[in-house]
Every structure is written in structure tokens, then in C-alpha cells.
């Protein structure tokens, strides 16, 4: 918690919602994160640049960028950061904030995650066939023909469950998740 250390509300919010996030204030802008990121070249802004933007209170640009959604959670940045900034965790925070601000309403990445957790909340386990079908049919279905051989291969090798599996105590899980959603992110 920064407690009045900065007038930058956006920065304060990011720090408050990320465990260990106050280290973001000590960022040297060295670029190790941007240099290590496997998907860095495909991001609108490198992670380092994103942090400079957060420090400059550029909330809209940050939350509308594709950077957090291109994070592959490889944790190279977090392992190598010389200031021990929990970068990957900050990316998750930014994703949370972008979803809440509805900046990525109709784009691909958050939809994939939301579809995924839809099944988890329904059955307690993930259901790949359902996920793939729902997601791909609602996102550029025509471009997905190239997945044909892949899908066929998986089906033939019996590596796809055709029906979802449900856990016994799904009510317990739902109660837990609902309670959690009512609590703030820390």
C-alpha cells in the first residue's frame, strides 16, 4: 500500500491490487522485461514502456493496449527484474482492470478467458471441446478452417473429451467463488 505516496490514482490502484506492487515505484526502466519477453515484439508497448505509461497516469492507453493480453506468463521478466517487481502479476492486475473497465468487450483475449471460466464455474472442471467450439465459432469462424487437421487429429487420438465432467460439490465451489468475487482484489 502506498498511502499517499503518489497523486497518481491509476498508479496507486495498480499497486494496491498487486501483492508486492509497491516495488513498481523503484523501476529503473532498464528494459530487461521488454528484452526478455517472448511476445514483446507483438505487443503495442513493451512491458517496460507500459510501466512508464502507468507512472505517467496514462490509464486509458494502458488498459486499451494489447500488452497484458499478449503476456504468456513465462515469468522471465519477473525472474530477471533487478528490482524484483512482480511484473507478471501486474499484467494480471491490468487484465482485471481492463475487463472491469470493459475496454476489451468484443476483442479476442478476454473472451477466451471468460469462456474458459464459464465452464469452470458450471462444471468445476474445464471443458476444452465446449470452450474451443464456443470461442472459435464466435471469433472469426471462417479463419478457423485451418484448425481442421488439428481438431481431427485430436479427435482421432481420443484426446478430446466429448462431454464435460462435473465435480460433486459444485455448489460448494460456486459459494466460494461468489464470495470471493464480492471481495476486493489485493
Amino acid at each position: 500500500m502506498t498511502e499517499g505516496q503518489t497523486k497518481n490514482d491509476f498508479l496507486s490502484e495498480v499497486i494496491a491490487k498487486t501483492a508486492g506492487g509497491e516495488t513498481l515505484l523503484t523501476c529503473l526502466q532498464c528494459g530487461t522485461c521488454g528484452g526478455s519477453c517472448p511476445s514483446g515484439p507483438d505487443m503495442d508497448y513493451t512491458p517496460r514502456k507500459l510501466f512508464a505509461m502507468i507512472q505517467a497516469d496514462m490509464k486509458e492507453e494502458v488498459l486499451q493496449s494489447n500488452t497484458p493480453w499478449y503476456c504468456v506468463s513465462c515469468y522471465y521478466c519477473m525472474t530477471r527484474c533487478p528490482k524484483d517487481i512482480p511484473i507478471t502479476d501486474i499484467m494480471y492486475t491490468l487484465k482485471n482492470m481492463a475487463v472491469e473497465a470493459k475496454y476489451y468487450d468484443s476483442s479476442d483475449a478476454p473472451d477466451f478467458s471468460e469462456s474458459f471460466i464459464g465452464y469452470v464455474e458450471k462444471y468445476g472442471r474445464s471443458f476444452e471441446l465446449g470452450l474451443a467450439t464456443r470461442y472459435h465459432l464466435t471469433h472469426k469462424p471462417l479463419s478457423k478452417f485451418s484448425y481442421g487437421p488439428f481438431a481431427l487429429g485430436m479427435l482421432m487420438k481420443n484426446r478430446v473429451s466429448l462431454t464435460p465432467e462435473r465435480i460433486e460439490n459444485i455448489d460448494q465451489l460456486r459459494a466460494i467463488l461468489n464470495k470471493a468475487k464480492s471481495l476486493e482484489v489485493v
Partner: protein
Amino acid sequence: MRYGYYPGCSLGSTAAPYDQSTKAIAKPLGLELEEIHDWNCCGATEYFSIQKTAAYALVARNLALAANQGGITQLTAPCSACYLNLRKTDNYMGKYPEINAHTNEALAAGGLSYKPGSLKVRHLLDVVVNDVGLDAIKEKVTSPLKGLRLAPYYGCLLVRPTLGEEVDDPEYPTHLDELLDVVGATVVDFPLKAHCCGGHMTQISADTAYELIRRILQNADEYKADAIVTVCPMCQLNLDAYQSQVNGHFGTSFNLPILYFTQIIGLAFGMKPKELGIGKEIVSASPLLSKIGAEVEEPEARPARRRRDDKSLPMPKI
């Protein structure tokens, strides 16, 4: 040795061979793997993207169930993503009081609770290499995998982030290399062995993911690997099932079978491929199997003394 076993969602479907081979080798290795009753999905990287508090609670339900399952203190997961989620949740609950408070408050709504530190969360590879031990494994090898050039592929989440407790080096891990050596294979130590396979990017941005997958396949191929050995269902899926997509996208012609380390151990223990789920991989491992026991070219012996006109500088010791 008794462990709580958390298979994770993919081991029931896309990674069924991993589950099968794990259970097949558990007995000879002396591992008692007790599945956690009514475990739920760990959320992979998806739940954290939407709402963190719920994501921790989702994982914590599994920790709570495991901790209360008849004296279990060690929880092992074969999937790197599940492993990280379980370990990270336990670690963060212990390190950050607010996360602990919120997570337990959520668990209480389901009549559960979990005290951080009650379980030691271990990846299956860690359990095999460190608890069973390489010597014990070597003794049980009946069909050493001579003739096979195997590239150990660690992926990311097994070794990173360290969270203050390093099981293997996060940049240059060696546990899997050592295991493959002990089962008699030729270990292909390739530079990208701990680089990212792209994870779920195959669904978000295929271009990005295919490039990451291609790099790994290419590097292993350059180092003349016969197969890549993985420790994670996501990595296996990406490298195996998407190999033809990658070939199509880049015009390459990779044909590298991708197997789980448990399948490799099983083969070295003389088990039948079918028992280990071999045959379910998209890029067939049959050519690989026929290579076992083939003659290996001995590397040229290095001369004992430096030649007089050798001007090269000595390499540093590692």
C-alpha cells in the same frame, strides 16, 4: 512415499497419456499417489486474468481439500501450470496477509479453510528426481534407451517464478537432463530448453504462438534431437498437436515426436508403449521406438595434451 495427487483437467483428456504413464510408473518408483477427492480446475492462466481474488479461492479449495485428506502433507501435480497455481497460492497466502484473509473468507463460504504452509506443493518431476532419486531409478532401468537422442524441454512454469525457493535453476535447469542421462539416453542440451512454448496464445494470437513453437522445434532439430521430452500438458499439446500447423505456416517439415518424461521412464523400465499411452501423440513416436538399442557413435576422444601450435584460450570452468 505417499502424496496427494492433483492431476488437473487436461490429464483427463488432451494429456491422458501423461496420466496413464504416471500411474504406470508410480508402483515401480514406490510412489503412492492418492488423487484429491473432488478436486476442481486450477484456473490455468485464465481465471487470474479476470478476477484475482476468485482465482486464488478457486485454487485454494484444492489446497483445503488436500490438506484435510487423511494426513496428506505433500501435494504433487504433473502439470506445470497446476503446479505453479497451487504453489503460488500457498506461497502468496503465506506471504501476504490480505490475500490470506480474503482467500480464507471465500473458503469459509464453502465451509473450508486452509492454513498456508500446511502442504508442500511439488511438481511430479521434482518428486521423481529428488525423492525417488536418480540412483534408485538407474537401478530399475532394464532397457536403457541407448541410441535415443532426447532433448529435455522444461517449459516455463516448472522453473519460474522461483518465489524464493529454487528447486532447479530458473534459467538453466538440469534435473530433467540428469534424469534422461540416467535412463541411458543421449541428452541433447539445447539452448531453448527453458523457453516459452506460447501457452494459450495458440487461441489468442496464432502467429505469436506458432513462432514460439517453431523456435523450440527448430532448435531441438538443429541439435539433432530424435524427440523432445516434456513435463507439461500444455507444452506437449503445443509442440505436438500444433506441429503440423507450424509446418504449414512456415513451410518447415518438422517431424519430432513429443513425449512425457513419465513415458520415457516407463520405456526404460521395459514397459510396453501402449501401457504408457504412447500412440496417442499426433506426431508419431513409432520411428523413435525402433531406434532404441541402436548403435551409438562414440564421440572422438579428445587429445590429452594441447598441441604445440594450439593458440586457443582455455574455457572457464563451470
